[in-house]
């Protein structure tokens, strides 16, 4: 499945329950108070469901920015 940046940004905003404009391609977890450890798991749950790719335990820790998530989805798509 082809991954669109816009699509991923929307998914992250919904998972964190923040306004869409607050998530940009440059956003890292450290930039958003809502992107805490629980928020991060919600993003991983949503990504797993939306793109049908399972994220390994090791990767869960590493995918802490939009760039990293996008690169991961590109690789696994």
């Amino acid at each position, binding site marked *: 499945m082809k991954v669109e940046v816009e699509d991923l940004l929307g998914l992250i905003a919904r998972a964190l329950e923040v306004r869409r404009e607050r998530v940009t391609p440059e956003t890292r977890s450290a930039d958003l108070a809502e992107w805490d*450890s*629980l928020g991060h*798991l919600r993003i*991983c*749950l*949503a990504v*797993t*469901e939306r793109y049908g790719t399972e994220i*390994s335990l090791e990767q*869960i820790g590493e995918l802490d920015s939009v760039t990293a998530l996008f690169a991961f989805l590109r690789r696994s798509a």
Partner: protein
Amino acid sequence: MRSEPLWYAGRIPYTNRMYRVLAERTEQLLDAYLNRAKKVLVLDLDDTLWGGILGEEGWENIALSEESVGKCYRDFQKLVKSQKRLGILLAINSKNNRADVEAAFARNPMMVLALDDFAAVRINWQDKTENLRELSLELDLGLDTFVAIDDSAVERERMRQTLPEVTIPDFPPRPELLRSWFLKEVVYRHFPKYQLTREDSAKTEQYRAQTARRDLRAVVDFDAFLRNLEIDLKYHVDSAATIERASQLSQKTNQFNVTTKRYSPADITHFVESPDHHVVLLEYADRFGQEGLVGLAILDLKASELDTFLLSCRVIGRGVETQFLSKVEELLAARGCSHMCAWFIPTPRNDVAADMFERHGFEFLIAREDGSRVYRKNL
């Protein structure tokens, strides 16, 4: 459905899709627990319980078999029959000749359902919405407890517009979908079951006995009618075995219910265990059959107050409340109460119980702003 990485990362055992399924099932169970479930399943016949038009094709030629299209309808009938066993009341609303339908049920060997499985039947050529109104009167149940199944979009639309209280699900486009559609869109959604009580399974027989009782009433005067019924009442006080049913009665009874307070099984357990309360269940039988546990009274012994007093609509109009109330008075007196206070809280549906206390020698004390009235009687 399971997600191992997320389990180790954050003790999250399932994927989001699983949580959605769990949420949906939980909601259905809650609906059942709070008794928001419907009570009556009204069925059309042609192209619903069997394939084809009975009046045109004859009872030998309708599609109902163990193969192909006929099996879709036969399997559907089996599911409907299982709902009846779970306490759902079945009814027929069909434009057909009564004699044709009787022949089909009696003679087609592939028929799963029998005419006797239906608590009430309307087979005629009048408007189906009129039939629904009559079914509601005959069964003594509100139209908001009805789910009507009909394959005709025109009939569905007409019923929806005229009787918005009735739930009318869309019908599947092809017979092979009947089974899965019925389970998903009708059973799980409108007839969820939390726990089955014995009264549920015997319901159709009770409603049929009701009709027999009514026929008797028509020919004799009221007192003679009551004597003729040979009513036999039993009482269960603070019995753990009746908690489930007590809660169910408090949740479901809308008409003969003086305070319409809703209680969960946990609430009832609390009253049963409390030394300051009595929970009294009324068990009814007469010469036409058993009705089971059909009345509930909850007494606050400390306040000398009648917290709850209700009768299932199945036994309204037989003077049962008079005897039940005497039992309540007896229990209060036994605990040294010199008087009893009682409330009538009016709702859009409990008018039938409005004069209950005046009729039984209570003194009217005050009416409050919300319309509720307080009564008192010396014991």
